[in-house]
């Protein structure tokens, strides 16, 4: 009887350790996958852009990346408390006005932020391109975003193109990224 209890206890302990190791392995594999997305882009590959559907900041429905298929998309992660985001906001707005008639969408993803603060930011900087609000920051992990601002370019074919821009995006980087996204049709 005592031997059986001891054996069962040992089996339970080994099972718990195995479960924890499996969880650790899953987490490491998930992180490696996200890193490889940026790495693959830097290596000249064009991986599928991770999908998402996020509510609009103005409360009028939501936008999914899938719904923008066929357009070139500038995905810009930002937050109202982020200082460099203030610097790049006018450049993103200018790019949106210049390229929207050519099938380009600038999409701002406001993450880990208060809605009211984000709305104030949008009003202060006269932003007219669509802004979605991702309070918990669920989209950040999918793209491996490590800080704000960060900008990605999605081609017409739904694949990531160009370079991931960490920090405030310059006008030149925007033009280069948008042109490549417009060219990516297959």
């Amino acid at each position, binding site marked *: 009887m005592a031997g059986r209890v001891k054996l069962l206890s040992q089996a339970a302990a080994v099972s718990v350790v195995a479960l924890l190791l499996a969880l650790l392995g899953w987490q490491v594999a998930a992180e490696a996958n996200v890193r490889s997305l940026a790495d693959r882009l830097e290596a000249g590959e064009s991986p599928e852009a991770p999908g998402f559907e996020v509510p609009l900041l103005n409360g009028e429905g939501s936008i999914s990346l899938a719904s923008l298929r066929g357009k070139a998309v500038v995905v810009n992660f930002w937050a109202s408390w982020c200082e460099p985001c203030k610097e790049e906001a006018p450049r993103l707005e200018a790019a949106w006005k210049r390229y929207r008639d050519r099938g380009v969408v600038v999409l701002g993803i406001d993450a880990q932020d208060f809605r009211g603060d984000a709305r104030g930011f949008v009003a202060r900087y006269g932003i007219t391109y669509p802004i979605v609000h991702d*309070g*918990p920051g669920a989209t950040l992990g999918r793209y491996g975003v490590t800080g704000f601002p960060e900008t990605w370019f999605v081609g017409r074919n739904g694949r990531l193109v160009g370079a991931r821009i960490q920090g405030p995006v310059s006008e030149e980087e925007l033009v280069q990224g948008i042109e490549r996204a417009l060219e990516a049709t297959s």
Partner: protein
Amino acid sequence: MGVLALVLVGAAAASEERPTLEELERELICPTCNTTLAMSSSPIADRMRVFIRSRIAAGDTKSEIKAKLVDEFGEEVLAAPPARGFNVLAWALPMVFAAVAAIALAFLARRWRREEDEPIEPDPSTNGRAPLDPELERRLDEELARFEA
């Protein structure tokens, strides 16, 4: 015991009705750094502290303040997950482990006590010591007999 329970219930009710920034800082997570607000000095943590102070001043209860922050940042903002759905596991598993450990300890303690309570029959021939090797005992007897003779 009853008085202690009353004191604890009273303190919890006071905390719910009149929360302090310090206790909420310990119960909420900074979204960008994944530590409690108390441990964070990031811009969003500072902004959340401003928000909490304003809601305390407006007379919100602790639950109301937390609900507003959950609405903004999701349930990830809570240091302790709410006890419903899959989250119930986070609350139940430690209690299950504690119960299993208590039962195992009780079982072992009972066994050890039973072993201690069992009287050890002394062997009069050895006077409580380990028995001698038979060959050595034979030689000892011979020596004693020779000495007595």
